[in-house]
């Protein structure tokens, strides 16, 4: 099929609903309207209100109810309309879902997928632009995936649905309709925790995920005309971290640039940098560099504020050049 990310999510959910009767989708406006991005449009008619549930405006209940359904043997796929609205459910995710398997000594698990659109650059301002991954990154018991390309969306969503434990499935709004590609019709899976080398190179390793992978690839393509060869790793899964792919790449390039939209401080990049510093310090020919969203409380609305927050492919190219010249 030839799809963009929205369609990849939609097609994958549709196949899963058809394949597995235990799957129930629940969230605000997912039924009659079919989600604000029309991802679940017409699902209600096809699968009925027992499987496509329009919920009250209650994130805590959406996730808590889904946890209970998962304990019951169902396979809930809960939607949080925008990632910015997930916080009323924080307790249920961090306090309960993530502890389920541990608390029950493995007697039962919590097979729950939480899908949510995240990320900025869409004029969403202070409360429709957030990146939430680092806030959940700290929590053992949660897996976090953030695919940015249609083929990865499909494979990782299938894997998330099949997984016995809770997974946060992050969909960057800016990638929803960014690119259209041919992907396989089968319900294939991509293992959670496996990064993907989206471009191979020898001078510098760039590690990123989400929308910024697209921009990093643009920057890397530009630099190839300057004879700079950049390897771009798309994490796809944020946690578990794919150390192997990162370390293997570094043993070739000896330089590491980490790029993400989420804040720098205490972020995903900090953990990757710490891992590399302890496991491969002597591979490095240059200091590790992070190019991240600024440490300000939220993305502003005005053009200048949003632009200053988002990192452009030109800024990425500059950082890449500087690192190679170090």
């Amino acid at each position: 099929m030839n799809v963009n990310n929205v369609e990849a999510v939609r097609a994958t959910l549709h196949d899963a609903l058809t394949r597995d009767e235990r799957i129930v989708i629940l969230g605000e406006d997912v039924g009659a309207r079919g989600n604000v991005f029309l991802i679940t449009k017409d699902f209600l008619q096809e699968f009925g209100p027992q499987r496509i549930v329009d919920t009250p405006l209650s994130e805590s209940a959406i996730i808590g109810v889904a946890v209970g359904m998962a304990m019951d043997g169902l396979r809930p796929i809960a939607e949080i309309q925008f990632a910015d609205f997930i916080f009323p459910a924080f307790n249920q995710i961090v306090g309960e879902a993530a502890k389920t398997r541990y608390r029950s000594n493995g007697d039962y698990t919590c097979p729950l997928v939480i899908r949510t659109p995240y990320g900025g650059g869409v004029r969403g301002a202070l409360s429709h632009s957030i990146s939430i991954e680092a806030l959940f990154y700290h929590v053992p018991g949660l897996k976090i995936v953030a695919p940015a390309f249609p083929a990865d969306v499909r494979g990782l969503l299938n894997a998330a649905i099949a997984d016995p434990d809770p997974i946060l499935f992050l969909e960057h709004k800016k990638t929803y309709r960014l690119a259209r590609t041919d992907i396989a019709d089968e319900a294939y899976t991509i293992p959670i925790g496996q990064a993907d080398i989206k471009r191979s190179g020898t001078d510098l390793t760039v590690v990123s995920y989400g929308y910024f992978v697209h921009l990093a690839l643009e920057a890397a393509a530009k630099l190839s005309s300057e004879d700079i060869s950049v390897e771009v790793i798309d994490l796809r899964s944020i946690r578990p971290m794919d150390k192997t792919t990162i370390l293997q790449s570094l043993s070739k390039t000896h330089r590491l640039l980490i790029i993400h939209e989420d804040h720098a401080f205490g972020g995903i990049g900090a953990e990757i940098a710490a891992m590399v510093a302890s496991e491969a310090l002597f591979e490095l020919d240059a200091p590790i560099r992070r190019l991240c969203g600024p440490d300000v409380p939220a993305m502003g609305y005005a053009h200048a504020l949003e632009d200053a927050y988002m990192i452009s492919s030109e800024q990425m190219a500059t950082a890449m050049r500087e690192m190679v010249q170090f």
Partner: protein
Amino acid sequence: MTLISDKLARFTTMLRIRMVEEMIAARYDEQEMRCPVHLSIGQEAIAAGVCAAFTRSDYLFSTHRSHAHYLAKGGDLPGLIAEIYGRNTGCVRGRGGSMHLCDLDVGILATMPIVGSTLPIATGAAFGSKLLGDQRVTVVFFGDGTTEEGVFSESLNFAALQQLPIVFICENNLYSVYSPLEVRQPARDRVALAAAHGITAALGDGDDVEAIFSLTENAVARARNGGGPSFLEFATYRWREHCGPHYDNDIGYRSEAEFLAWQQRDPLARTERELLASGELCAATLSDIKASLQDEIETAFTAAREAPFPDESTLFTDLFVPTELCVQAA
């Protein structure tokens, strides 16, 4: 006894809100206002009637759908329009857009689009007023959907327990985004729900600005005299799409017939008719009022469009962590 001029003032507030939002709607597709906008067209009587019962120094909190509340409480019009245009002269200097309004001169502490967020915060502002003994009453506006969030009950409980000077205003426009009330709540009575928390509660006609005003006036008087919180729900209808300037009766979640029935009840036209019939307003005065509002609104739009955008450097202002942590990690 209500003074004639007060009635006219409430009508003018409604008319002004309608005209401002119609102008936003008319110009939205020019793509210069780039933030989401949630219009209150059809719901103006509630903002106008409620806010008329409060003083300038009383506190106001609202939601994503807050232009009407901001204007009715006396919020600065040029500051609102410039904010929607993302300019440095906006009421929060272009940082927030339509859903993050603020005007401290008239007690508008915050409007917040995270549904339910404001309920405990408004409760806290009222608790502060009680502790400080500053005689202020807080009003918090929210929609029917908001009553589904856990903090709704938590806030009512706290406010009742502490007998706080706060008035909870629920605008029941029957929808939360695309989901009708009956899909989201059983046939429960939110007035009874509030009453069960020990809060004085009533249901009102959201199209009748004078009835809204007098219900609220009672609630405010009670709150100011230490009589504790009130909950008022008003039946109303949003005419336009949930978010954006257009009509959306064609996309299937609600019917054209339902929309037309509510539009018939137009709170603005109704008030205008009543005032004209009673002689409290004449055609000539009405057209003068409209002309001067039109002037004021056009001036605000022109000023907004000519105003500068905030400078990129303001990204790093108003931070309370050390600035060396605030630059992009190098």
